[in-house]
């Protein structure tokens, strides 16, 4: 540890222990937050970091441990939500808890209470003034009466942060962010992280959990890594200390040497020979204004582009969710009329994983088994009804082959972690042995280890001759996973990156430059 005195330390946690039944979620974990720094809490799913945050927030009572927050000492065992608030801990969860239809002012007031006159009528003017000051202080370019739904995603998060800190901006407050960028597109998370960084430079203490290594490395000063409920690494930054590399951090998270570059090696660049599996020519419909591209069997083709560029619409149109209004679409050698629906495209060998796991992939209340077999129901049907035994057995096989961690295939899907849910959703589709696999943000909100598993699965499918189209806002993902990437801009293919050009930096340049040119064009 460094030589910092206790006055520089906002939070010191030692020996934090918490069990759920016989499972030890936390096993003597420790955590030290220096004042005015951004501290990253890292770990795979089930490493105990979420539990640690919940114990700190007083949501779960801890079993044992010692805690010093802003000089106040306390036992973890008796720590309550009221104590946490009193000590200056402020939490912003991934779900921001904002009401989109209500104004910023109302959202703030719902947390802090409305200022009222005698007779309980709301003093709107005072509320607006307070919120205007808050927005100014947190550098949010918006008006108090604006509905939250009209804000950009990064701004919404900042509103949630401002709301959490509104009564306690004295430098003692400790802001805890649970995956603030998990659902944000790349440029939004950049904006948010920059804003968070500025708060820290002004003396705000921030702890954040994130699965996106690149971001964490860019913004955090210190790092704590959890593994199996223990803190296995404390990395304190400083001017004279070199920042850790991603490989280093992942090695701590996995407890084994991990070659972050291993994902990059390609067995062989597939030949663009023979007939293309997918031919899109001048495709129109929705945000698509004449997309043309081809993909060959065994290829992993990335689709980059800003929100609204038609990235997701391209995939949904190919899958038959939306009908194209014009253009040619040839899937696996068959000319499409454009009137095929999802089921028809599935029969032709197309599979699609939506970017919205909760909203469009998960049957949360159904079992894992039912989720896995949703795409192949008919195959289990005979005159004696659904062959549940065969269904269960095949589900168990899939769980193993896709490395899904689950207690039992009969548990509710909702009890699985995000990464495991996503692996199951991918498994649901790959069991159909698709010839064309469409993935939209396949690893959004997925932990590093699950991400590696998913990449391996996708590569294996491609090696078997499946054509894969990956739409993503994660440039690191695109450059790691794909053989080439097309960049969409305003519904047309703007450029294509391959080989040495295929790096996150080039992708950033390609998409951002398209913003500039798009601005000129209008």
């Amino acid at each position, binding site marked *: 540890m460094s030589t910092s005195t206790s006055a520089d330390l906002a939070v010191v946690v030692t020996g934090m222990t918490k069990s759920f039944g016989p499972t030890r*979620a936390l096993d003597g974990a420790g955590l030290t937050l220096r004042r005015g720094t951004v501290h990253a809490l890292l770990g795979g799913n089930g490493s105990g970091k979420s539990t640690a945050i919940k114990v700190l927030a007083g949501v779960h009572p801890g079993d044992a441990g010692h805690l010093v927050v802003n000089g106040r000492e306390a036992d973890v065992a008796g720590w309550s939500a009221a104590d946490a608030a009193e000590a200056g801990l402020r939490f912003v969860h*991934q779900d921001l808890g904002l009401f989109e239809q209500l104004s910023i002012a109302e959202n703030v007031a719902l947390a802090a209470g409305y200022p009222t006159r005698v007779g309980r009528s709301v003093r709107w003017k005072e509320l607006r003034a307070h919120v205007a000051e808050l927005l100014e202080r947190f550098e949010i370019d918006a008006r108090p009466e604006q509905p939250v739904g009209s804000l950009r995603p990064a701004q919404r998060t900042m509103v949630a942060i401002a709301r959490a800190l509104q009564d306690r901006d004295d430098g003692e407050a400790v802001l805890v962010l649970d995956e603030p960028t998990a659902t944000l597109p790349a440029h939004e998370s950049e904006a948010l992280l920059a804003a968070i960084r500025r708060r820290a430079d002004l003396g705000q203490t921030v702890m954040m959990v994130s699965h996106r290594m690149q971001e964490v490395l860019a913004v955090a000063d210190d790092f704590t890594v959890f593994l199996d409920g223990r803190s296995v690494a404390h990395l304190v930054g400083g001017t004279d200390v070199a920042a850790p590399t991603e490989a280093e951090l992942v090695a701590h998270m996995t407890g084994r040497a991990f070659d972050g570059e291993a994902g990059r090696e390609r067995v062989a660049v597939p030949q663009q020979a023979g007939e293309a599996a997918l031919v899109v020519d001048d495709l129109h419909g929705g945000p698509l204004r004449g997309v043309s591209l081809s993909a060959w069997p065994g290829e992993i083709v990335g689709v980059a582009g800003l929100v609204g560029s038609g990235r997701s619409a391209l995939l949904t149109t190919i899958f038959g969710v939306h009908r194209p209004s014009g253009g040619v679409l040839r899937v696996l050698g068959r000319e499409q009329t454009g009137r095929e629906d999802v089921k028809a495209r599935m029969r032709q060998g197309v599979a699609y994983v939506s970017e919205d796991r*909760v909203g*469009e992939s998960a049957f949360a*209340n*159904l079992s894992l088994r039912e989720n896995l077999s949703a795409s192949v129901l008919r195959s289990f049907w005979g005159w004696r*009804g659904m062959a549940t035994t065969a269904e269960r057995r095949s589900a168990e096989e899939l769980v193993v082959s896709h490395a899904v961690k*689950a207690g039992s295939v009969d548990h509710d899907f909702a009890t699985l972690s995000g990464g495991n849910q996503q692996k199951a959703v991918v498994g649901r589709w790959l069991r159909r042995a698709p010839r064309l696999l469409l993935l939209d943000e396949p690893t959004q909100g997925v932990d590093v280890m699950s991400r590696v598993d998913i990449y391996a699965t996708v590569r294996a499918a491609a090696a078997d001759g499946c054509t894969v189209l990956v739409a993503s806002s994660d440039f690191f993902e695109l450059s790691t996973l794909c053989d080439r990437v097309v960049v969409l801009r305003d519904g047309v293919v703007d450029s294509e990156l391959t080989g040495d050009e295929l790096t996150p930096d080039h992708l950033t340049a390609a998409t951002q430059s398209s913003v500039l040119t798009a601005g000129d064009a209008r």
Partner: protein
Amino acid sequence: MSTSVTSSRGAGTAGAAAGSGTPESPGTAPTTGGRAGKAGRPRRGHDLRGLAEKNALLVLLLGVVVFFSVLPASSERFATSENLAVILGTQATVALLALAVVLPLVSGYFDFSLGANAAASGVLAAGLMSKEDMSLAVACVVCLVFGSLVGLFNGVLVTRFGLNSFVTTLGVATLLGGLIQWYTGGQTILVGISPALVDFGSINVYGVPAVVYVVLLVALVLWYVLTHTPYGRSLYAIGANPRAAKLVGIRTDRYVTASFVLAGAVAALVGILQLARTGSATADSGNSLLFPALAAAFLGATAVRPGFFNVVGTLIGVLFVSITVSGLTVASAAAWVSPVFNGAALLAAVGLSTYLGRARGRAS
């Protein structure tokens, strides 16, 4: 159709708003640390609670039977085969209607027009036989077609045009009630009804009214359809997440419409059985049948497969309510006791299933 789905979705799972979109919905990584830990805990506690949950209603039913068999005020007349036959006979139509109600509910849609549909079908069957001199068989077929068409109408409005199922079917129910008034002129149809039908409605086979066998047959078919066909499994998937269902290739609009059609046909059968039981068709709106049926369906969703509407649970629900009411009647309780009991039982059942759902981390 998304608006109608979300607005009427409360019905999809009896575990209240357990469906999509709740803020703490699954899948968000932050909750996973604790969750992943919990997944490893021994499953015995989980299984025991699940077992208790699954069979609570059945145990309660047996408890009620024992209670009234022992209670001095009712013991003499309650546990007799005559009483059982009466209960089963009078509740057969409610049970069948409850099964019809379950079909659209599985995929998250209400159909309040089923009671009126049954009443209209009964009146139509009676009218066709007495006014048009149709044979029993033809009248029955016409009725079943009529019921299915009403279901088709509902289904198309709800899926193709995206109307809210709650309001749409309420509208159709009111409309049918008016048509019944028009068709009968407010009169009860007494004459010209096939004596074969009325005989069928009053005979017992092995001590049990014949109509009960019809109910059991339909229940068996629906049980098979809902639990053992891709169609039924798809309906449950639509109930769990309609958008995800669409994206795994389920033709949701078609499937939901079909469930309305099937429910309409079953409702028509209810009308015919009702005609057989009473031997006459009154100008009734059918709502007196619908509400106990709805209650039974919701009670049933707390049993067998808790959180989901299901056939066996619904039958247990019907038996639970009707046996209790019969017991209270035999014990000569005041007239207001039965509805109070029914209401309380429904509230308790829904409350319990929501609570258990939360305890399991579903709706919390």
